[in-house]
């Protein structure tokens, strides 16, 4: 093979063609045996996920950014335990790479006791911070399947700590990117390779512990599968694994067929490129016809030559599966056979279909920006079929600090904090969203206890709790997000930055008239006197993010507000850093919100008097919070009438609206406003 990336294997996201042996085995499988088999396989995968989490060291691994999969001998992912649904279609590519390139290669080979590591995002699909390990499973002398764990370890020796360098100008600044490589033989990891992988990063302890955690989980799963094959036979195992894929594909297409035929569109906008405040667009179309969906694009900003908000197309398909596995196909097994119901077509050389050597370290931002559009499309497309699941979106804009330096135990640290796993859920057709629900892309993850985080991170948490300006309003409001503040503690310094989007244009939009989540941003105070206030037990210090910005905040120092994407910079002992992990989006018209629910939010601190009076139009006694229902009805009727006075027919509106235009400078990377065109193809290699 040429020593470059393999552009063929990444196209093979749908299941491989069935082998003769699988076809013969499949015919003889009893339905009851198949049900028991599926349950056992799910339990093996779940045990693999839990083992990985309990043994690992990185923030991602400890708090659930983990997928443990069982792959067929051809590399298709048949069973997975995760809330990180993109791994349901992306985790298979490295395995298919191994099958294609190493199985018959005499210098590498695939033998019992081997293990393979990988983190090249071209194969893993998301970004180099996501790393994986898989092992082949043999029985009766034959390769029968693979098992593997994919986890966000983070630190990979990139130009900035944590594996997501904002300032990367090409992939050569994005750190270690390993295509599938053999790292162990004869059930033993190779120490020379562990030394190389550890040395390549700022945090070798975490790198190697995470690899060993994945491998330990794989070995347990390997043993369980071999026990099953010994019990049920090789043919049954092969046939049943394939049957999971065939039944999933059939069920997925049947479920799609229940939706109304039509075309659904959503333009998405992101307000950051590198760390420049510029706007780019992803125009999304999803066509449903018969039992198939087809994803196409209607205007996407050109690929960014020297900024990392690009993604490979496979990452977009992976993130689409976060919606499909978690929300639409929630009642089906999560595996790559779901893709039998989805076709796609990508415009070349755009931010959703990167090629060449452009950086992709912030691909998760462009991917989540995209999939938020799929959530909006999904709600509109599925309301008729299943209104209870036509929900507003969970927070999608990230909002995560990254850091590097030494901790209080003089160990190197380079990671992210776990609060991105504490965002709010979107509002539903019948209730408010859940506060601090998790990350939409990692629904089984957790944000850690602050004490646990403080134990090996040089932070002193000042507060971490819900705040009222974190969610979108609506008939039902989004769940609240989490605001938190930390002071650098126990160490002389730490380098910190922030990742995300949505400081200018909201990251997370509402549905059916619900409002978007407010913008998020960072506050820093260098030279802060907060520790003095703490020593004095000063009770006037802010205890949540809403209280940071008023005159009453006693903290003094060099205060500054920043975009949620903030380049890394040094913080000294005592400096403070405040950030939001956003809440969920709103559902439905604010004027239909139950006035009593507004009062409940006032009591719990999740709404302000301004919101109750001006947004929800509720008349109430501010002392007792008793609602005046008749006066509220009149206020709302007046608001409905004002809308009718303010509104005009669409043609009339467009006449004046279309004459407006964003300032030219923020369109630097847009690619032609309002309908961007891809870059010209100069015949460069893909």
């Amino acid at each position, binding site marked *: 093979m040429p020593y470059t990336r393999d552009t063929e294997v990444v196209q093979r996201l749908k299941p491989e063609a069935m082998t003769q042996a699988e076809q013969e085995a499949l015919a003889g499988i009893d339905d009851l045996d198949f049900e028991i088999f599926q349950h056992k396989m799910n339990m093996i995968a779940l045990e693999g996920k839990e083992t990985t989490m309990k043994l690992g060291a990185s923030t991602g691994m400890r708090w659930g950014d983990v997928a443990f999969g069982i792959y067929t001998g051809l590399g298709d992912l048949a069973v997975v335990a995760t809330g990180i649904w993109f791994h349901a279609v992306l985790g298979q590519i490295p395995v298919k790479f191994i099958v294609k390139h190493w199985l018959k290669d005499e210098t590498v080979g695939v033998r019992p006791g081997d293990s393979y590591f990988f983190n090249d995002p071209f194969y893993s699909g998301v970004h180099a911070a996501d790393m994986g390990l898989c092992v082949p499973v043999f029985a009766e002398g034959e390769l029968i399947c693979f098992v593997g764990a994919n986890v966000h370890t983070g630190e990979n020796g990139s130009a900035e700590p944590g594996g997501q360098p904002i300032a990367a100008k090409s992939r050569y600044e994005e750190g270690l990117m390993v295509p599938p490589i053999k790292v162990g033989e004869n059930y033993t990891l190779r120490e020379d390779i562990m030394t190389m992988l550890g040395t390549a990063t700022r945090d070798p302890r975490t790198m190697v512990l995470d690899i060993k955690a994945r491998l330990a989980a794989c070995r347990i799963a390997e043993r369980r599968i071999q026990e099953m094959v010994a019990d049920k036979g090789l043919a049954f195992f092969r046939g049943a694994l394939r049957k999971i894929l065939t039944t999933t594909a059939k069920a997925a297409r049947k479920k799609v067929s229940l939706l109304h035929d039509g075309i659904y*569109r959503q333009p998405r906008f992101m307000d950051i490129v590198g760390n420049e405040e510029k706007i780019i667009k992803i125009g999304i179309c999803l066509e449903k*016809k018969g039992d198939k969906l087809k994803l196409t694009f209607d205007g996407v900003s050109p690929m960014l030559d020297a900024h990392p908000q690009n993604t490979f197309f496979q990452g977009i398909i992976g993130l689409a599966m976060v919606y499909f596995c978690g929300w639409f196909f929630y009642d089906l097994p999560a595996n790559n056979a779901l893709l039998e119901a989805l076709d796609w077509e990508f415009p070349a050389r755009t931010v959703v279909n990167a090629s060449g050597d452009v950086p992709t370290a912030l691909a998760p931002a462009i991917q989540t920006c995209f999939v938020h559009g799929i959530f909006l499309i999904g709600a509109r497309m599925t*309301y*008729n079929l299943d209104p209870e699941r036509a929900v507003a979106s969970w927070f999608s804009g990230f909002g995560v600090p990254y850091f590097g330096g030494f901790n209080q135990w003089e160990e190197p640290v380079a990671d992210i904090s776990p609060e991105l796993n504490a965002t709010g859920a979107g509002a539903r057709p019948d209730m408010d969203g859940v506060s601090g629900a998790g990350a939409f892309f990692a629904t089984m993850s957790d944000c850690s206890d602050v004490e646990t985080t403080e134990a090996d991170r040089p932070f002193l948490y000042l507060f971490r709790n819900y705040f009222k300006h974190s969610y979108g309003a609506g008939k039902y409001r989004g769940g609240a997000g989490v605001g938190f503040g930390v002071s650098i503690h126990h160490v002389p310094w730490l380098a910190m930055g922030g990742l995300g989007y949505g400081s200018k*244009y909201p990251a997370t939009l509402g549905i059916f*008239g619900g409002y978007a989540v407010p913008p998020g941003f960072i506050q820093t105070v260098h030279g802060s006197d907060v520790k003095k206030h703490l020593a004095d037990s000063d009770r006037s210090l802010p205890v949540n993010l809403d209280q940071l910005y008023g005159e009453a905040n006693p903290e003094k120092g060099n205060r500054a*507000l920043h975009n949620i994407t903030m380049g890394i910079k040094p913080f000294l002992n005592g400096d403070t850093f405040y950030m939001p992990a956003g809440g969920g989006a709103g559902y439905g018209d604010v004027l239909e919100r139950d006035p009593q629910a507004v009062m409940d939010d006032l009591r719990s601190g999740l709404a302000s008097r301004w919101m109750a009076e001006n947004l929800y139009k509720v008349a109430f006694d501010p002392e007792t919070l008793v609602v005046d229902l008749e006066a509220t009805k009149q206020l709302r009727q007046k608001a409905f009438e004002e809308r009718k006075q303010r*509104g005009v027919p669409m043609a009339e509106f467009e006449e004046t609206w279309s004459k407006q235009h964003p300032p030219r400078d923020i369109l630097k990377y847009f690619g032609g406003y309002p309908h961007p065109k891809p870059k010209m193809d100069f015949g460069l290699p893909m």
Partner: protein
Amino acid sequence: MKIRITEYLEIDLDQKKWCCQRCGQMLVDARENYKKGCLVAEKPLEEVYPALTEGQPYGFRPDPNFCRIVEFYCPACGVMIENEYLPPGHPITHDIQIDLDALIRSAT
């Protein structure tokens, strides 16, 4: 016969029109963008988002250079059927384009 499409929208198969689910108002031909049957207005950002950081480059209110809110109301009852967050002047989205013939076939 009416088919529910969203929280606030139905399609009347007999009339082949979009309707407001709350008040029954006929909006526009069901093959068209339902937004053409709505009243449309730009909602001032400050009516939804208190910034809390006046005079600062960042706050809890979207930046009007990047984002505006366009709202779509039922012309009869005034309920907000949908909204869009768009950069200034960006074309309105035809977000739901139902295949009406297929819908009628499946309903009958």
